[in-house]
């Protein structure tokens, strides 16, 4: 039964996220005073990619592509989507973070398997950036876990129930800021899209992908975005009913797009340094506040 819910979740994720991607491209276009594509343009791109023929650089190149898409789809199943939980109790924060890691490891392996140095440089940049954005985010959530004594995401959502004032956005403002910055890092949106820098390293890891491999990678990217933004919404905005959840989701994602539409790109040396300056400091302060003073968890309005 829960496997069916999981499958349903994957379909919902695909449909919702890809349409939202269309709107997102429309919004970026409007920011650049352009007309922008139709809403279903991303569907077209994905299906066009699957319709084309493709080349294969050996076993690990194909296996990695399958592993990355498979891993990310598995993670979608575990993420609570506005109350629908496929396996209740098993949606542990660390499990989700590390299943995401399966996805990125698969992509890294197949990218390097393609033999193109640009792909290796792209993978190196992706992993370096991951060290950057992952640690502050986990510290903030670590504070939350200690505060509430549970690391299951649906439990953290229930804690924020009851109106706007109980959201973690207000209970832990610094945590929310750090969460949003590392969300931008996870999504590889403009300031942090060093791994897939089309101008510098010919779209990084994706350089050798064409046809169905490219299609699978685009799907994986969509599912990964769904998970990361879903994670942020659950943890910081207390994802309520389906409509409320989707509105919050769209709001967060479009807000991130607007920011990324106007910003330039970091140099890779600066990315880690940037993440370990302000965001890490904020996350440590936030975790210290939660752990030692309990403000935002026990002591709240």
């Amino acid at each position, binding site marked *: 039964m829960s496997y069916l819910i999981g499958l349903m979740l994957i379909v919902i994720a695909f449909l919702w996220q890809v349409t939202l991607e269309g709107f997102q491209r429309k919004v970026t276009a409007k920011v650049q005073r352009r007309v922008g594509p139709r809403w279903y343009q991303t569907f077209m791109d994905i299906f066009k990619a699957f319709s*084309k023929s493709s080349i294969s650089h050996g076993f690990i190149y194909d296996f990695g592509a399958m592993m990355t898409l498979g891993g990310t789809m598995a993670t979608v199943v575990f993420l609570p989507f506005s109350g629908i939980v496929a396996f209740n109790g098993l949606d542990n924060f660390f499990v989700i973070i590390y299943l995401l890691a399966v996805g990125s490891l698969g992509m890294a392996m197949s990218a390097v398997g393609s033999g193109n140095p640009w792909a290796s440089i792209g993978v190196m940049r992706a992993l370096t950036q991951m060290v950057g954005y992952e640690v502050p985010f986990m510290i903030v959530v670590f504070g939350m876990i200690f505060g509430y004594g549970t690391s299951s995401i649906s439990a953290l959502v229930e804690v924020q129930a009851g109106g706007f004032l109980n959201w973690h956005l207000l209970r832990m403002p610094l945590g929310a800021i750090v969460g949003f910055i590392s969300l931008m890092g996870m999504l590889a949106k403009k300031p942090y899209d060093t791994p897939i820098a089309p101008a510098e390293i010919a779209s990084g890891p994706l350089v050798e992908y064409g046809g169905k491999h490219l299609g699978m990678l685009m799907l994986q990217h969509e599912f990964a975005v769904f998970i990361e933004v879903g994670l942020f919404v659950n943890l910081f905005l207390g994802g309520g009913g389906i409509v409320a959840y989707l509105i919050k989701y769209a709001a967060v994602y479009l807000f991130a797009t607007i920011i990324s539409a106007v910003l330039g790109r970091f140099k890779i040396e600066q990315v880690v340094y940037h993440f370990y300056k302000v965001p890490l400091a904020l996350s440590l302060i936030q975790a210290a506040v939660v752990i030692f003073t309990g403000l935002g968890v026990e002591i709240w309005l």
Partner: protein
Amino acid sequence: MAMNNDFNEINLNDGDLNDTITFWDKLKNVFRGNSLWMLHYCTGCGAVELPPTMTSRFDMERIGMGPMATPRQADVLLITGYLSVKTLRRVIYTYEQMMEPKYVVGFGSCTLNGGIYYDSYATINKLDYYLPVDLYIAGCMPRPEAVMNGFKKLMDMIKKGEATGWKKYQRHYEDYYSPNQIRSLGEVYVKDEFHE
């Protein structure tokens, strides 16, 4: 470049090259028609026309087209101007790296018949000898409107299944395209260029 006369006359368009119109192909053509990724190979003066078509004034993304960095991801190869022999070798190498349903669009007169450089020692006159060109956009560098019009035309051809240049290249590589390439680039095998 002077035309040598033992050029072999092959009717390239023999056989019914149109896609066997099965339902799947019709569906695939719809997708291919709506989303066309271009490989921005700026070989000549036409390159400067493309930024305006992409940006806010004409916005190519409206019709589903976008610039791609690598040939593996691209569908359409734009040859925007005169092609020197040296660049031709790269263009052919890039074309072969593109994924299968691929299209070539030639800009301006230089790709048609050599244009104003028809008698230069360095450029090639007729792109069609070397690559199967699906669409030519006339104009000694067509303005963005013409480019957009050309792209719309190409999309309709794809939807109707007429843009079959890549099949022509597959079928006639040994007897038409490869000898032409070797004739103009010299006997050296295209891939392992030593002295370039």
